[in-house]
């Protein structure tokens, strides 16, 4: 067997059924051997989308996504996608071809030091020097990517290593890394302290972060909240865990969150942060958060605890383990009064609706759209105003919510939606895009057609980079510059070019019918929303 075959066999051993990638000279040996396997390769139209698709794939399949590119420009094109995954702790295996071992460092055609370039946003990286190391490396890489704080792992393989013949395939059964032993079980003393703290608290609140989804601990956290009647809020990355009909769910926090959720955090005397970074967008002044409350921070990554806010009770561990332990305590608390008080803060949407019939109100659109979808659907947002509209008007009835929260990468939605659909064909995938972001990713419509996928695409078209415009309005005295997109392309023609159904929603009057059309259309389609070019999210920047 040659190195490429060892690689294919190793991926099979990890139960990989799909890889997202783009060929090139250095990685050709791999695709050559892949024809002998059942693993399905998805040919993207730009390498960055391979990483985004693997990212979306993980979000619905809960299995590590794999993306593959060639050396040099192929590898560097992946970087933005790797960084996007890293910022949201999404496990990926990134395989890049490399020039021949003997030529590394000689600035050969299509050579790039991809390991050096990616150092600060991979969890770990390998440069394989001997083909016989491939199985062990793949085994380790999957283990590292998917345990502890998840993240992308890069494997760079020179082409001569892929072509090196004469190896037997032996896949290791276990991984033994002396430098990597993530702490999963929370310290029992610290866990007891949480219970003690709750016995003293009058108004505790839980902040659910993306870590709850990543550790698949939704059930444990929600049952803890229910057991003691502890209200909870969500960060952007935690959206979807709390459902709107749960009286304990107060809403999303942060500068795009609801006023009452932020108020709830401020008034709480004990804040349990579960799998969140206390990041700048979620908590405006993280260092002040401990001022009038006890901060309990539970995270699998010890370096995250105390980075942005110093907790009174730090707990390092996997959320699933920690909350299972917490649920074992017989102590019973009840914070009904506090929950009732918080529920009086909640505001209705009455009066928020725009009366104009010249345009589509994007807030109302997201509200109406998400009101009608449940756990059969997943919303995938892009970055910009569409992301803000989506997260702050999302009605949580069980639908999944996928977004690039940490890195804020434009052009994420369409490829992530493709990955999400491939990850779970039973889900209805709805991709929300701005006209700016969509133009970064629309070449991927071709992949969508090739894979024969059914994805509902929404484009909020305000013919401008709306978020930039809003920022210039807020911070640069309305000096609008460099944000006009000129009204091109005509998305109807784009839809026709890719043989997709298309509809334009001109005004609020048509909204309900258009949503019906979107959700019920057969196959992929594009719904273009005619959004006022002066529409603002009114986010709190």
């Amino acid at each position, binding site marked *: 067997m040659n190195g490429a075959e060892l690689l294919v066999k190793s991926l099979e051993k990890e139960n990989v059924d799909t890889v997202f990638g783009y060929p090139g000279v250095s990685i050709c040996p791999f695709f050559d051997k892949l024809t002998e396997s059942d693993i399905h390769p998805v040919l993207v139209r730009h390498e960055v989308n391979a990483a985004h698709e693997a990212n979306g794939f993980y979000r619905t399949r809960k299995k590590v996504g794999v993306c593959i590119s060639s050396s040099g420009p192929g590898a560097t094109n992946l970087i933005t996608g790797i960084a996007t995954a890293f910022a949201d702790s999404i496990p990926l295996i990134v395989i890049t071809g490399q020039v021949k071992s003997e030529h590394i460092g000689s600035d050969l055609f299509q050579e790039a030091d991809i390991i050096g370039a990616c150092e600060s946003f991979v969890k770990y990286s390998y*440069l394989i020097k001997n083909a016989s190391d491939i199985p062990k490396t793949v085994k380790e890489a999957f283990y590292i990517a998917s345990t502890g704080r998840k993240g992308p792992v890069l494997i760079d393989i020179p082409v001569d290593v892929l072509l090196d013949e004469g190896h037997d395939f032996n896949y290791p059964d276990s991984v033994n890394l002396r430098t990597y032993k993530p702490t999963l079980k929370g310290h029992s003393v610290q866990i007891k302290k949480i219970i003690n703290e709750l016995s003293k608290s009058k108004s505790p609140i839980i902040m659910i972060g993306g870590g709850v989804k990543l550790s698949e601990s939704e059930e444990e956290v929600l049952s803890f909240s229910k057991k003691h009647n502890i209200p909870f809020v969500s960060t952007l990355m935690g959206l979807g865990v709390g459902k709107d009909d749960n009286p304990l769910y107060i809403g999303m926090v942060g500068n795009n969150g609801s006023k009452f959720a932020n108020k709830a955090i401020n008034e709480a005397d004990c804040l349990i942060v579960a799998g969140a970074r206390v990041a700048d967008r979620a908590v405006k002044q993280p260092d002040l958060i401990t001022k009038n409350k006890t901060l309990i921070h539970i995270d699998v990554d*010890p370096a995250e605890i105390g980075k942005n806010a110093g907790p009174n009770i730090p707990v390092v561990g996997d959320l699933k383990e920690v909350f299972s332990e917490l649920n074992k305590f017989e102590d019973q608390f009840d914070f009904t009064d506090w929950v009732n008080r918080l529920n009086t803060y909640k505001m209705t949407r009455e009066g928020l609706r725009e009366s104009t019939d010249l345009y589509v109100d994007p807030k109302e659109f997201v509200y109406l759209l998400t009101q009608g979808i449940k756990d059969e659907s997943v919303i995938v947002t892009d970055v910009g105003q569409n992301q803000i509209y989506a997260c702050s008007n999302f009605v949580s009835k069980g639908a999944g919510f996928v977004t690039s929260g940490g890195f804020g990468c434009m052009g994420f939605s369409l490829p992530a939606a493709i990955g999400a659909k491939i990850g779970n064909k039973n889900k209805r995938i709805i991709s929300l895009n701005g006209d700016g972001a969509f133009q970064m990713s629309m070449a991927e419509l071709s992949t969508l057609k090739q894979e024969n996928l059914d994805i509902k695409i929404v484009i909020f078209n305000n013919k401008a980079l709306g978020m930039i415009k809003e920022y210039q309005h807020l911070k640069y005295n309305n000096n609008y510059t460099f944000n006009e997109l000129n009204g091109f392309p005509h998305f109807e023609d784009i839809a026709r070019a890719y043989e997709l159904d298309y509809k334009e929603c001109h005004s609020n009057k048509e909204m309900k019918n258009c949503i019906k059309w979107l959700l019920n259309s057969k196959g992929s389609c594009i719904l273009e929303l005619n959004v006022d070019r002066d529409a603002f999210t009114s986010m709190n920047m």
Partner: protein
Amino acid sequence: MKRIFSVSVENRFGVLSKVSSLFARRGYNIESLTVGETHDPTISNMTIVSSGSPHDLEQIEKQLNKKLDVIKVRTFKEEESISREVILVKIKYSAANRSEIIEISQITKAEIVDTTDSNMILLLCDTPDRVDKFIDMIRKFSIIELSRTGTLAMKKCK
């Protein structure tokens, strides 16, 4: 605040760059860094001297521990450590200042390890602050080349 990090790492290709890039990426200061193989050829030891706020120093330790090639991080203050540095300095001398240089070497216990009729190389192994003082003393001579190793440190026996 100054802090010494003695870091055991996998003795592998690229590890030095991974560790040093962590400092660059997060804006931490490196005052000195020395690295070498230990008695176990699979392990290297890095001694990194850094300074910063207590929050920064805590983060450095956590981020170092997070690196997958890092086996163990020991951290201690300067006064809790035995630390040494080696310095080599090449000086141009003349008949007029030769005896003064020799005198300084004797006082500081520096060794003259190489000489020609116009140049000599002095070697000193001492604590970092005494190496600083030594440099101050020889600064007035014509220094051709100066090289110091950076701090090598170990926590004192208890």
